[in-house]
């Protein structure tokens, strides 16, 4: 217990001292996770909505596949992306392995099914009703899609926040494709893992506090938004 309290004290001092290394790790984590969430959102929202409103052959299988991927272990996502972008892989010529771009790709793969699944669930509930309403009021397909997105905004926001939470807190994928290289691909989760094995608890606790703080802030915003709605 004494060790934890001492760790917390040292962590606060470290954060208040604006240690460059700590803050570069924090900013890289935020950058990688935000970009991954952004790219995943661009793809997952339309896919989730289409799954919710369109009927097609194999739909049930596609949905089960999405649900399965929602709990995809990060190390598997990391491994697959690594095999694709490693030097001998089909995209090896791009030279992406052990770069922040590779980390963004791996996290995007993790986040896409989460946002898709959550948006699909919301659309399944009221997508067709909104579509019917839009048609009865004379909306064309573009306006119908915009209306759907507006009506599903809580589900979409929940999906994005959940996806971001997943991205920022995972360690396996970024460790495999990023390599935890100091000053280059080192993010909060990989650093905490490394520091714990080294017995350097102060910085690990400091980063842990920042991770928790980010999670708390994002969820607080979502909570108030949902309450307002």
């Amino acid at each position, binding site marked *: 217990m004494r060790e934890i309290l001492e760790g917390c004290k040292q962590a606060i001092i470290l954060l208040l001292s604006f240690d460059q290394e700590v803050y570069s790790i924090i900013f890289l984590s935020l950058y990688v996770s935000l970009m991954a969430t952004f790219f995943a959102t661009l793809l997952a929202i339309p896919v989730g909505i289409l799954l919710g409103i369109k009927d097609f052959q194999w739909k049930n299988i596609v949905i089960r596949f999405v649900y399965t991927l929602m709990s995809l272990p990060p190390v598997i996502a990391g491994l697959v992306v690594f095999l694709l972008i490693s030097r001998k892989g089909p995209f090896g010529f791009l030279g992406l392995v052990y770069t922040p771009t590779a980390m963004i790709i791996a996290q995007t793969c993790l986040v896409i099914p989460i946002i898709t699944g959550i948006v699909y669930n919301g659309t399944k509930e009221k997508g067709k009703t909104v579509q019917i309403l839009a048609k*009865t*009021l*004379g909306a064309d397909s573009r306006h119908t899609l915009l209306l759907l997105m507006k*009506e599903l905004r809580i589900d979409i926001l929940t999906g994005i926040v959940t996806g971001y939470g997943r991205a920022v807190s995972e360690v396996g994928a970024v460790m495999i494709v990023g390599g935890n290289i100091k000053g280059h691909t080192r993010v909060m989760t990989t650093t905490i893992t490394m520091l714990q094995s080294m017995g350097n608890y102060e910085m690990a606790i400091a980063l842990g506090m920042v991770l928790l703080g980010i999670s708390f802030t994002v969820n607080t915003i979502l909570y108030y938004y949902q309450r307002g*709605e």
Partner: protein
Amino acid sequence: MEIVISNLVKNYGQHRVLEIEELKIARGSFCGIMGPNGAGKSTLVKILGGLDGVTSGKIYYDGKESSGDVYQNMTVVFQKPYLLRDTVFYNIAYPLMLRKVAKKEIETRVRQLAEEMAMEDLLYRKAWTLSGGEAQKVALARALVFKPALLLLDEPTANIDPASMVVMESMIKQANAKEGTTILLVTHHIHQAKRLCGDIVFMDKGKVEEFGEMREVIFSPRNIKTKWFMEGEIII
């Protein structure tokens, strides 16, 4: 808007739910659609509103077959309306925004309609805080605000209080009389049909059993099924 239905058939799988050889609803008429449950009334409304397809047959709106332009000029109000997750004002204004009506004009028309329907105080309430009756009034206002040529109403006053019903009926009647809107009203209430409709279509098992002037169909029906239905309704 004049509607002409010709050899309309609608099947759900092997089950035939609608079979109408010929039906002509005159432009500007107020037509009630009556019949027992499962008669195909709501299916007919959905098909006319472009919300469901036909198995075979044709529907002509002012002589034209269904197209995007036709659907721009009509709307449907259901028994359980869906209101957008926004204010009442936004809900009523939405069809006008779709039609790119100027902001000032939208403001004027929404306020005027809200005043006529005695719901000015609801304008800035969030839609999900409304009671069932209030929501139904908002749905009707949203349908009337862009002055459609055809208004399809599927039991819009079911489960609402008498005061709201009076307001809604008055607005529907006004749209028909002043704007010349063709109205098709699905109703189970014979008294409502008597108050509002000029013509009645009586349906049973997907077929039009009788179509004619309201007084004739309700008080001296030619078809025995219509007679039984009307008598049953009167007894109730």
